């Protein structure tokens, strides 16, 4: 049977790094094809190319043997429909209108509402989702919105349906329903590409699996001929060259951070402790709720329940807001440094000055010489290159920008440091330096909490690893003994593999 959709030798680079490297995938009618890989393996880029949102540097996308030009409209016309990972619905329009957004049936400019509602209802009936089509999206649950997204994709009568992590926000019952719905659609002849980290789902649903790693295709197999263990091995893949030399000897002291019963959007009742001189790693997949968890702990976002305490010099203080967290020596290196971390058009000195201004100028009047001296010291300490503290932060490369963000907090000698994806988008050299800094902090007795989707990094740094999934800690591993497969297994929803 001929392939409905075929991506041939697709290559796409972003500024020199190949996000997708010579990947070929083909899917037949009625087939459900899984594309799996770690965060950043290139899955989403590949799907964006298939759906015409991105253009490949080389290679072609064929639908039923015909090459399609690369535009979103061409892809849709050719029968490729993408269900976005992010929600692309209009909150204040009704379900029916969202299903037909941009293509309302009209006569003389007027929307044919009856017709639109009838079609929308038919589409929803087809996928078996009962929802009031006159309800506005903003009043629907996240799960229901996900189903409306799918209805919207189905309404275009596609030949190929691409779903990117569709179950991320669904309960088990809803996930169950979604999977059986996709099985039904495939039986009717739809080709489905299913992107997921969740191995059990892949094994229940899919016929074939393609594994990407670092942009390259590393493994293709029929599901029947492989095992979950094999898939996880291939996802992680790289030679385990865990350098034991690079691990430090942890001597954890007293508990510095204790968080109990934390609840927040995306976080479901988590307890967490971090001791002085200890690096605790939070592993898991993108969207597992790790960022939400740490932001709720330090008060950067609102939490709905829970207590957080910081103990410094034997004094136990409650953290009720981000300001109180800062007063008690919490330092936060956020995930999105361009948005949360740095004022890009301010100088390095100014960026470093921001969190330290009360220390450096108790009277409120800035002493530029002092500010510059401190900035210079910190720039040297983190190895900023070039160490020109008058330069705008935005003129530095990603790795150096991250060093500036870390430098901001070093002056205060924080008691508890939280780093969210500290080396994302950072070159190898800067990565090693950032790792050195983090270890140095812990050696000096600071309590450190690191969120990382980069498994080798997590394993190298952490003394204890908590793996988070669906806003909960699914398992806790000893950092010295854990391996990538165990972390990935927990993160992807497999049982803990016996080591």
């Amino acid at each position, binding site marked *: 049977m001929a392939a409905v959709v075929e991506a041939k030798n697709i290559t796409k680079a972003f500024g020199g790094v190949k996000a997708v490297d010579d990947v070929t995938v083909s899917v037949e009618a009625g087939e459900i094809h899984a594309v799996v890989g770690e965060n950043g393996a290139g899955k989403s880029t590949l799907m964006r190319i298939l759906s015409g949102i991105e253009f490949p540097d080389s290679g072609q996308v064929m639908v039923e043997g015909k090459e399609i030009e690369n535009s979103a409209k061409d892809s849709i016309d050719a029968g490729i429909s993408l269900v976005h990972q992010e929600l692309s619905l209009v909150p204040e329009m009704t379900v029916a209108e969202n299903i037909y957004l941009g293509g309302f049936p009209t006569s003389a400019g007027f929307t044919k509402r009856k017709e639109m509602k009838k079609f929308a209802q038919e589409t929803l009936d087809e996928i078996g989702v009962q*929802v009031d089509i006159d309800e506005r999206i903003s009043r629907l649950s996240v799960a229901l919105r996900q189903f409306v997204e799918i209805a919207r994709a189905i309404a275009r009568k596609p030949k190929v349906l691409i779903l990117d992590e569709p179950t991320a926000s669904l309960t088990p019952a809803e996930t169950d329903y979604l999977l059986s719905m996709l099985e039904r659609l495939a039986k009717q002849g739809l080709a489905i590409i299913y992107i997921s980290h969740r191995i059990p789902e892949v094994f229940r649903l899919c016929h074939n699996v393609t594994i990407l790693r670092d942009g390259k295709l590393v493994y293709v197999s029929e599901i029947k001929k492989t095992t979950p263990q094999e898939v996880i091995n291939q996802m992680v893949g790289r030679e385990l060259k865990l350098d034991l030399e690079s691990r430090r000897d942890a001597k954890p002291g007293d508990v510095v951070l204790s968080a109990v019963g934390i609840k927040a959007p995306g976080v479901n009742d988590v307890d967490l402790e971090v001791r002085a001189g200890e690096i605790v790693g939070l592993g898991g997949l993108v969207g597992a709720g790790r960022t939400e968890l740490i932001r709720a702990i330090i008060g950067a976002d609102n939490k709905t329940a829970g207590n957080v305490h910081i103990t410094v010099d034997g004094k136990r203080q409650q953290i009720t807001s981000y300001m109180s967290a800062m007063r008690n020596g919490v330092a936060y290196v956020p995930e999105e440094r361009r948005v949360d971390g740095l004022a890009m058009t301010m100088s390095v000195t100014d960026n470093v000055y921001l969190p330290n201004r009360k220390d450096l100028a108790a009277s409120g009047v800035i002493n530029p010489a002092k500010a510059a001296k401190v900035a210079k010291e910190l720039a040297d300490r983190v190895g900023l290159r070039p160490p020109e503290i008058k330069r705008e932060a935005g003129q530095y490369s990603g790795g150096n920008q991250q060093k500036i963000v870390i430098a901001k907090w070093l002056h205060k000698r924080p008691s508890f440091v939280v780093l969210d994806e500290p080396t994302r988008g950072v070159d190898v050299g800067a990565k090693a330096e950032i790792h050195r800094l983090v270890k140095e902090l812990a050696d000096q007795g600071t309590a450190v909490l690191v969120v990382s989707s980069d498994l080798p990094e997590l394993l190298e740094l952490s003394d204890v690893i908590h793996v988070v999934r669906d806003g909960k800690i699914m398992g806790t591993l000893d950092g010295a003994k854990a391996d990538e497969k165990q972390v990935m297994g927990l993160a992807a929803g497999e049982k803990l593999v016996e080591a």
Partner: protein
Amino acid sequence: MTQQDTIQLGGGELSLWGKIKLTIARRTEGRGVALLAIILTVALLTEPLVFTAYQVTLGRIALIGLVALGLTAVILMGQLDLSVASTLAASGVVLAIIPDLTLGIIAALLTGLLVGAINAFGVAIIGINSFIWTLGMLFFLRGVALVISNEAPVKLTNADAGIAFGQPLIGPITPRILIFILVFIAIQVFVSRVKMGREFYAVGGNPQAAKDAGIPVKRRIFTGFMISGFVSALAGVINTLERTAADPIAGSTVLLASFAAAIIGGNYLKGGRGSIVGTLIGAGALGVLQVTLTLSGVQVPVQQIFIGLVLLLAVTTDPNNLRAVLSSIRSARSSRVKVQKPASEPNKSTAS
């Protein structure tokens, strides 16, 4: 296959009361209705004349409401048009300085369309914040009105036509009220039934999604600003005809009142949420308020204070903003509430 065939997520059969509650929850006009109810009650108790002299009241609502209706089209897309009052003044003067009435009306309305197009150009093409760009337009047009009127009110050449225009057509319905009702119906139908108008909500609510779905966002912005410009010009024409003269500095309270009407009527300033009906309700509330105050013999400054307060209240009590404020208060408080767990239990989640 043993799997269930459908999945029900929310919804389901509702009792009558449930349906009523659902309908209320779906609407955005809540604050406007509440304000209208309060004002009507107070008016009923203190100045029942407001209801006997309903022609005056209706006329006042039409005066405030007309500009607000056009403005709503722009606000739905998350933009603002601060130039509405100056457009009203300038187009009124344009009408008065042209001797031929028909030609004058056409020229005045074209002025409004042109202003709308220039506003949209700055916002959609150059990419300037609509508050600042239309604020510039506000002052520019005030200058234009002063220049073409020689800085003095201009008498309408055909004053008889103006006087005739002010007379009621049927019952209490003057042409102004009739035009207001027609414009209300036209814009209401436009944003609720016409494809282009419905898409305003998409442009304001999720611009990226709108673009991805193939909606020409920039063209919609042009349409919205031109509606606003045209309706403001129409209000200017009506004012000039009714007063048989054009005042180049007319409409200073129109700006305030029309924004107050649109915002208290539930139109979200960041776009995507609101309704024309809400604007109507808001205009109704403000109109009754003004007439009540006038009839009570309250001075003009007091009226300004009241309308200003309504606008301040409207813009600070937007449900979305309030929710964020309340949630941060709740979060700070939640920390102080004891959790149902032993708070000090070492080694609980740390594996060792």
